[in-house]
């Protein structure tokens, strides 16, 4: 007779797996990827491919020769890191810098801490910020989007809408005078603006986010708290002085906010566990982003905000526990 199998209860498990979750995220990134290919053409495809391949290669090499542990490069997490890293760089970035970014993202951001599930910081953002600090010139050189572009080099570059706005306001110009210099809101929503490869189209990212919400890969708490706090924060300043501060909608659909709120901040490994904690985390990200955007040296603050909040995650996990069943209700 067969040997019986013994294990503790429960004896059934969901068919959900790490792999399925990861590939679900990859699938949800497709719309944004297509938009980026449309506007940045071959360069975007090349950078995305380079990032994905080199992320997987570094993960393989480190797991095989340094950690000497089991190989998990096919679980999809390295692919996500690769895509998100590519999404966070301008399409004119030299490919060797993309490779360095991948090495840092996987090597420094993930494997140093022991691999999947143990990294405190979002690996793609670690790679991005490393590149940002290391190659500030190349990382702030934004090619203008051209439909069906096939050009690889010598494309026209220009500042991002956020940079235009920040520069203008710091010169004392009025917001109303600066707005005509940037693409209209419909274009901003569709992605027809300068910026990193994957962050340009808010619409495509929202589409992917909705897919992830339906598949229950992410919960609504972090994106909602993040975007909500950005709206409130920028809204307050906009109401106080509309000549110096642009309206919340502009902040929502420009820069990497959508990408950050929906893909970066919601990274399971580096976000808090409880719903309450996720709300706090989202609000923290939103406030920090706006503080950097309005008062900091950089026009964009999403990466830094999320990384800073990543560092607070253990604290948030300690301080914001889920609501316990039968929790003693304190009577005033």
């Amino acid at each position: 007779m067969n040997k019986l199998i013994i294990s503790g209860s429960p004896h059934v498990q969901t068919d959900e797996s790490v792999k399925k979750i990861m590939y679900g995220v990859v699938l949800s990134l497709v719309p944004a990827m297509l938009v980026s290919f449309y506007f940045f053409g071959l360069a975007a495809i090349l950078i995305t491919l380079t990032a994905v391949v080199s992320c997987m290669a570094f993960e393989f090499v480190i797991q095989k020769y340094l950690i000497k542990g089991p190989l998990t490069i096919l679980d999809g997490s390295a692919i996500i890191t690769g895509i998100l890293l590519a999404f966070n760089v301008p399409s004119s970035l030299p490919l060797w810098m993309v490779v360095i970014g991948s090495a840092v993202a996987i090597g420094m951001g993930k494997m140093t801490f022991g691999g999947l599930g143990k990294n405190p910081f979002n690996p793609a953002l670690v790679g991005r910020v490393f590149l940002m600090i290391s190659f500030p010139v190349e990382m702030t050189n934004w090619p203008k989007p051209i439909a069906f572009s096939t050009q690889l080099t010598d494309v026209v570059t220009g500042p991002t809408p956020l940079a235009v706005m920040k520069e203008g306001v710091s010169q004392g110009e009025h917001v109303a005078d600066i707005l005509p210099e940037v693409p209209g809101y419909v274009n901003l929503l569709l992605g027809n603006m300068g910026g990193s490869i994957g962050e340009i189209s808010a619409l495509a990212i929202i589409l992917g986010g909705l897919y992830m919400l339906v598949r229950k890969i992410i919960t609504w708490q972090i994106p909602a708290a993040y975007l909500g706090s950005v709206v409130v924060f920028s809204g307050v300043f906009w109401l106080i002085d509309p000549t110096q501060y642009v309206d919340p909608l502009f902040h929502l659909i420009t820069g990497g906010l959508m990408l950050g709120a929906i893909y970066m901040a919601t990274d399971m490994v580096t976000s808090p566990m409880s719903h309450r904690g996720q709300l706090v985390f989202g609000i923290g990200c939103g406030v920090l982003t706006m503080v950097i955007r309005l008062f900091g040296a950089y026009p964009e603050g999403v990466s830094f905000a999320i990384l800073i909040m990543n560092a607070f995650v253990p604290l948030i996990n300690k301080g914001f526990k889920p609501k316990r069943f039968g929790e003693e209700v304190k009577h005033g």
Partner: protein
Amino acid sequence: MSQIKNFTKGFVKENPVFVLLLGLCPALGVTTSAFNGFGMGLATTFVLVSSNIVVSLIKSQIPDKVRIPSFIVIIASFVTIVQLVMEAFLPDLFKALGLFIPLIVVNCLVLGRAEAFASKKDTLSSVIDGLGMGFGFTFALTLLGAVRELLGQGAIFGYSFIQGDGMLVFVLAPGAFIGLGYLIALINTIKKTE
């Protein structure tokens, strides 16, 4: 422990920066280039050896309770001497390291060795310990400086290898932490395989 061992321990086995994790403030602060690290290392070595000598000479005369203040005064004096002499005769080096020279006073490596070694051992051992530790410190700072200079500016000891800029992050403070972290990991690996 033989004196040779006493001398060599500072390089890898008990390297003050990589293993004992002492004197990290200058290790992180001044090592933007290999030369800076080297200069700072030598300055520290001088202070270390001198204070070790003096401390080991007068150790039996110092009451326990004023031990630390006395050591600090001795160390601070040597640091000031280094500073004055350097400014007078090596103005270029002083320009590069000036800000960090006074920090040698609070470099826990110097006080640490005075307290843990020189106040217990004879003068010869203390000198050798100071030299060993100092050279180990110099080695560590030079190595870290070289790594940061190489990655950050594409140069070593000022000799440029590549055109243009390197990875700027290694010139900045985060690069110091990253570089130090991975060097410590490397040293640990080496120590493990030995």
